[in-house]
């Protein structure tokens, strides 16, 4: 009985430690601290990855964070996050903004606020060449993706008979595809293009034209942090107007890059 009481006490202690972050004014805080802490991906070219030469995290997401920090006249601190960890990190105040290939969706919008869409893509598959012509070819197969992503939820809906294997990140899921452990890896086309661009045996894989969802990316900020959200949105719209946003896109997805994509969107104010 005594043991049980100790146990209950331990459970109660853990419970009391679960705290929720306060809704504050990040804009003022960041200006005061002089540094903007951004949660980014660090193994996901071309959005956020470690440059082999400089050993620094670079990418599409990072350029947007840097532009916002420049506008604020503060320094940038990049903190690697995963799909599963980014929202808790933000809500607990460890980071000020999420710039980590994050799809805007209504469930997430209940917990955090999103900026205007700064990147638009769709969820597709990467498979062995010639193996997958339609979604039917993936029925009953194992499909790899990353934990805590929208990709995981979309594919479970699109192909209910498939077994979704969720790994810690996409490179690991792609390794499983290379080893034949899964029939396909699914996530946003832009990410798949990045994975394929870096793969040593590119010509064995392809991205068939099968889109199962549209994925608008937004920068994530704490709920009810109105000043900060307004500032970020204003900055994004200015970047579109000045052509800076397009320049960043071309830098990472232009025809000469390893991941050429068409820019099918413009940054506009959300309705």
């Amino acid at each position: 009985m005594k043991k049980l009481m100790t146990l209950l006490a331990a459970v109660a202690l853990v419970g009391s430690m679960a705290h929720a972050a306060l809704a504050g004014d990040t804009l003022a805080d960041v200006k005061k601290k002089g540094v903007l802490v951004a949660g980014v991906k660090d193994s996901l070219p071309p959005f956020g990855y470690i440059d082999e030469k400089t050993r620094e995290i670079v990418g599409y997401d990072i350029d947007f964070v840097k532009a916002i920090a420049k506008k604020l006249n503060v320094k940038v601190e990049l903190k690697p996050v995963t799909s599963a960890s980014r929202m808790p990190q933000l809500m607990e105040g460890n980071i000020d903004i999420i710039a980590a290939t994050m799809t805007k969706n209504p469930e997430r919008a209940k917990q955090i606020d999103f900026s205007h869409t700064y990147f638009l893509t769709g969820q597709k598959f990467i498979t062995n060449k010639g193996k997958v012509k339609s979604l039917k070819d993936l029925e009953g197969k194992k499909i790899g993706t990353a934990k805590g992503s929208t990709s995981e939820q979309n594919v479970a809906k699109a192909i209910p008979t498939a077994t979704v294997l969720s790994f810690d990140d996409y490179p690991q899921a792609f390794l499983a595809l290379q080893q034949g452990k899964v029939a396909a890896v699914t996530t946003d086309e832009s990410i798949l293009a990045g994975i394929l661009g870096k793969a040593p045996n590119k010509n064995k894989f392809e991205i068939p034209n099968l889109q199962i969802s549209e994925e608008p990316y937004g920068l994530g900020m704490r709920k009810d942090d109105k000043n900060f959200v307004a500032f970020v949105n204003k900055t994004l719209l200015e970047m579109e107007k000045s052509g800076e946003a397009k320049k960043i896109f071309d830098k990472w997805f232009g025809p000469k890059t390893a991941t050429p994509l068409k820019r099918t969107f413009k940054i506009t104010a959300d309705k």
Partner: protein
Amino acid sequence: MLKYHFDWSIVTSGKYFDWLVSGLKITLELSSVSIVLAFLLGLLIAVMRMSHIKPIRFIASAYLEFFRNTPLLVQIFFWYFGSYKILPTAVNDWLNSTNFEFAAAVIALTIYTSAFIAEDIRSGILSIPKEQMEAARSAGFSFLRSMQYIILPQAVRITVPPLVNQFLNLAKNSSLAMTIGVMELTYQARQVESYTFKGFEAFTAATLVYLVISVSITWAVHVYDRRVLNPQKAG
């Protein structure tokens, strides 16, 4: 100001409850299969360690040191991803057509835990006066038969408390299988969290279930110990 709204209903009924139950089922399968295999393998390694034949003793020691001193997570990745490079294509194809995630987790958990169990059983064997072995041998039992009929039955009895620890560790360590996509309890709790953002509820539920599993294992071994192995201890 606590802004978090607790919603325990998500883990007590409906779809997410079903997920957790299916995760629990896998955790129980994974743990029970691995516990049985790890115990048998541990017994074998312990006996090999006591052998009079030097190479056998050496193999057992090397096995023990190797698997006891490397992280379980690394071993899981090794069996799942690393083994691909050293196995023939046909074997890989066959493995991939099966539930290899589960099998790789069982292999890793079994081998890792068996190293610890072997050490526990060995100390149990060492606590049996060596005259018993000598007596058994002079009575005409072979080494293995002496072990089987005289030494091990006593050694295992003494080893029960540390064995319980290893079983508990194994059941809890099984949560690492989530890293290779085995949909056990922790995996499902994480799923519930990423669908609902109710991490506190999901992981509290998982915590309580692990607690129940651990307490059940302790209790089951205790009962077995008092009823079958050491009835004299029962008051």
